[in-house]
């Protein structure tokens, strides 16, 4: 019976040294000196009781890393975007088509798309991530081979498309036909996995702002994805990030592109409803 007072003491100790040094900062993200992004927003209604405010992972990074995202000339992710812009216009597959053959200029046709993905596809009767949609176009419209789900080609293309929505609020639907998938994603978010027995929420809802060894825990938002990581010097997809986080609980991960990760992506994206799309972001 002595554990209750002890927990209270532990909580006290926790709150004193913890928050001062480690909270999210109050910096403002202005890209190229002109576009101010929403990096903190009131939490969407479905997070009632869980979070009051949602914050982009940008706030949890060191000033030097933050600066790289403030100017497209400094943002190493922009090189991959440029590469993808060429691929956009490059014919591939048996139908003799490029992305541009159907969609014309990416700036106009893809504006706003990222903000509402993952989303319901009526014809396929399923929730589609942007990767799934891109591969569907490749296979069924271009007669080209599907790209590896979390490979470089597709991640760069997702970044090019996402950039066209930069500054627009994330606004994925959570009800209607996607509701069952969203519920599944929510369940996965709170499920503790692996021998360390940790859930996404344990780190990103309960402990954002705290340090776990050298890592400053963010809310694990996806609004900045694909994210250029200095650690592996390339753009990283949402599912690659999820895989790394699940692996770190000493669990068997789900596969990139699996129904579980698609559901989880929808749910996590919805936790960021209201934040600006900020791709490609820069992280350590």
């Amino acid at each position, binding site marked *: *019976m*002595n*554990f209750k007072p*002890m*927990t209270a*003491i*532990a909580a006290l*100790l*926790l709150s004193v*040294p*913890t928050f001062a040094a*480690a909270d999210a900062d109050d910096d403002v993200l202005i890209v190229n000196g002109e576009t101010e992004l929403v990096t903190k927003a009131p939490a969407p209604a479905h997070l009632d009781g869980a979070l009051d405010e949602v914050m982009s992972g940008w706030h949890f990074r060191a000033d030097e890393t933050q600066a790289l995202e403030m100017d497209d000339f400094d943002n190493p992710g922009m090189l991959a975007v440029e590469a993808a812009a060429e691929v956009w216009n490059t014919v591939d597959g048996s139908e003799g088509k490029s992305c541009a053959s159907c969609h014309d200029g990416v700036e106009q046709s893809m504006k706003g798309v990222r903000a509402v993905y993952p989303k319901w596809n009526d014809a396929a009767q399923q929730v589609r991530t942007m990767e799934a949609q891109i591969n569907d176009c490749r296979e069924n419209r271009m007669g080209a081979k599907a790209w590896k789900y979390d490979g470089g080609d597709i991640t760069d293309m997702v970044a090019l498309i996402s950039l066209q929505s930069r500054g627009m609020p994330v606004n994925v639907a959570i009800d209607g036909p996607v509701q069952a998938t969203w519920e599944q994603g929510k369940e996965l978010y709170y*499920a*503790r*996995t*692996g*021998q*360390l*027995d*940790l859930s996404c929420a*344990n*780190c990103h809802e*309960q*402990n954002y702002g*705290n*340090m*776990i*060894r*050298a890592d400053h*825990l963010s809310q694990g938002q996806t609004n900045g994805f694909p994210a250029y990581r200095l650690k592996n010097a390339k753009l990283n997809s949402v599912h690659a990030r999820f*895989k790394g986080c*699940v*692996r*770190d*609980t*000493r*669990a*068997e*991960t789900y596969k990139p592109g699996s129904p579980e990760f698609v559901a989880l992506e929808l749910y996590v994206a919805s936790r960021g409803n209201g934040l600006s799309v900020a791709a490609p972001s820069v992280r350590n």
Partner: protein
Amino acid sequence: MRLSTLTLAATLAAGAAFANPVAPADVVFTEDGAVEQSLSGMAGNPEEGAKIMGSKQLGNCVACHSISALADVPFQGNVGPMLDGVADRWTAAELRGILSNAKLTYDGTVMPAYYKVDGFTRPGNAYTGKAADGPLDPLLSAQQIEDVIAFLGTLKE
């Protein structure tokens, strides 16, 4: 002098020969989550314990806790409380319980159970992301846990 050292060594050796570590499934917890009986049957070594707590490959306790006595270990986290003075707050039996399965002391805690091998969802093969290929080993051995408890026992204000 010489005699007593030898006697001590002999006793320790005998202890080693006879002490069977308690298997993770056989650990007896009190109602409050403490574990009275030594897991290895042997005394812990505080220097080893300090190494285990600071090492990323072993306990990696500093991922979540900071400890002034381990000031040379960089990047100590603050997901859990600072452990300075922890021996004033908990007995060895209580510390053994927290290490073996902290959830029995703190309901729902994020602190992993270091001496537990079943009841997990999708247990993996260490940090490979692949499924475990057989029964799990506990995160720390019985003796490693006793070593950590011995080190924590030195953390008095």
